[in-house]
């Protein structure tokens, strides 16, 4: 049921956003970002879905089929799957940088509470 996938993506997105808006712990905010990131994976893979499609792998086709037949047949959209891979890579980099910043913030401020880490305001 593909609708369930979309709903799942939207729910994950909202959950991530809710975490960012309401949790004051910086680690939890980073987890919220990761949740939002995960929602984009679900959305992209669901958008790539075609009913009854096979994986877009053209090497080693099943017996009796050529790669051309597979390419013209019913395969899931490889481009969106590709984006999903890109997003995972970017997500890892971003999570790494965020956690590095969080560690340094914790060392300097001695807290992870976003409400106490606001020397700059007004």
């Amino acid at each position, binding site marked *: 049921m593909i609708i369930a996938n979309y709903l799942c993506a939207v729910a994950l*997105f909202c959950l991530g*956003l809710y975490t*960012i*808006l*309401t*949790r*004051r712990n*910086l680690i939890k*905010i980073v987890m919220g*970002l990761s949740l*939002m*990131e995960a929602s*984009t994976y679900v*959305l*992209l893979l669901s*958008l790539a879905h075609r009913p009854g499609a096979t994986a877009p792998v053209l090497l080693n086709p099943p017996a009796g089929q050529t790669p051309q037949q597979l390419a013209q047949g019913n395969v899931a959209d490889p*481009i*969106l799957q590709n*984006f999903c891979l*890109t*997003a995972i890579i*970017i997500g890892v*980099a*971003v999570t790494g*940088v*965020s956690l590095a*910043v*969080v560690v*340094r*913030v914790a060392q*300097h*401020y001695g807290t992870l509470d*976003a*409400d106490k*880490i*606001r*020397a*700059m*305001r*007004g």
Partner: protein
Amino acid sequence: MGTAALASLAPLAVVVPLTGGVVALLLSRLSARLSRTVSVAALAATAALLAMMAPAVYRGEVLVHYLGHQPPVAGQVLGVTFGVDAWGLTYALIAAVVGTLLLLYMFSEQDELGSRELGGFSCLFLLLVAALIGAALTADLVNLFVWFEVAALASYALTAFFLERPLALEASFKLLVLTNVASFLIFVAAALVYAGHGALNLGQIHVALAGRPGLADLTALGLLVAGFATKAGLAPFHGWLPDAHTAAPGPVSAAFSGIMVNVGIVAIGRLVFTVYAPAGRPVLGLLMGLGLVSAVGGALFALFSDDLKRLLAYDTIAQMGVLAVGLATGSGTGLAGTAYHLVNHALFKSLLFLCAGAIVHATGATKLSEMAGAGRRMPWLGAAFAVAALAIAGIPPLNGYVSVGLIHAALEESHQYPTYAVMVLAQVVTIAALGRAAVTLYRPARGEFERAERLRPGMLVALLLLAGACAGFGVFASPLVGHVVAPAAQALHDAPGYSHALLAGGGTVSHGHVAFDYFAPAELVTVLMTLVLAAPLAWWATAHSGARPIARMRAIQTGSVNDYATYQAVGLIVVVATLMFSALADR
């Protein structure tokens, strides 16, 4: 050189700074001097490369290069495309040129930094500039997202470059959260567009959207506008901007404000006018709203800010608002004004931030109230600050007068007088804020400064070149309007020409004409009026900066990352809901 040969150079504009960054990082282990030379040379070469394309592009050519030499098949572009048009090139050129100057300044100011730090800094800085140039030149939606993300990663690290400063870390975290959310929005939007039309090439998307856009397309547009508005720092997406600019080192805040935030406006202009045209019309009203709120709000916050860099950062929000209003006019004159103001903002705002950084460097003061007398002690610095402040204030013959004048003229042409009045109000507050800062620098000093360092030659050269450019771009307004800014505006306006060029491997956009009357009496009277109104306002603001309503207004900027993300989420909902509502009302 032929057009095809020129077009094949387009990817080099990104490859050269990327390679230069990596090489500079590696060379820093061997020799700091060599590393510095390579990074400056790489950026200067990028600027030269872009300048080589300029004559053809400003004649109306669109230089198109398919990466991997994959030509389109039956109107379907298979690979990533670079399309150099006048709109993108204008921004890319100014980013490369100002970037080179900022790098020179940084090397001159921070000569006590270790070679490893310098190598890391050069690498990040070149990465940022390469990403900004890539975002301006690319004609592919996902590639645009990738450059956005590269610029974002570089900016997180640059903000927190001095890891021992807690403020820098705090700012970096806020920047990180808000920009990350924005990048998800852009990514989801790209996926929605692709799922709907099977296209990522901007020209192909333009063709696919020629009919009535579906709700999914409009949602995607809303997400894109919200995402890039976060980059541009338009209210209410602006939470990260003042903190990141305050905490970063001087040349980095200059780069953020002068060249990085502009990329949001460049991308919004491209998407709204050349991709979604003519279906993107409802978004113009929205941009007008965002722009006016940013212009007035940013200027008000700037007026009551005591930290000089924070004042300038709020003024950046105001200037981005002016740019958004210019886009929202949608007319040739307004778009020309926007393109001109984009260039001017890169010049005068990086100059102001460099001055602020130089004052902090030389005196150790960060608060405006502690800086009295800095302008008298360092006359060149004071003069450069005054030139930039006058340029923003729009005093002829400096550059701000021309660009703001063009945007005003566009509002007048379309008889949007209430908007015009709000813009003039924002201008009055802006002049008051910057005037207060400039006058403070020349007040008698209250005592000795914490530090007493001299300006180094490299710093002075960068300041004077930028100040000279502010004057030059004002004095030579009419050739610039005719040959640079008018083609840039036309590149946005002629959406069919641009998209046809992208699909045909090159082409031209039509010629547009923009007139600017340098001595228009109405504009001169407006300038005079804003000056007369700004003086008492500045005086009043100095006397009443602690008043309760002002404290209450400033409390909006709570400093909590949760609140800033909330403002962003509210902005996102407003943007998407407005687009949905206007689409449903149409049916």
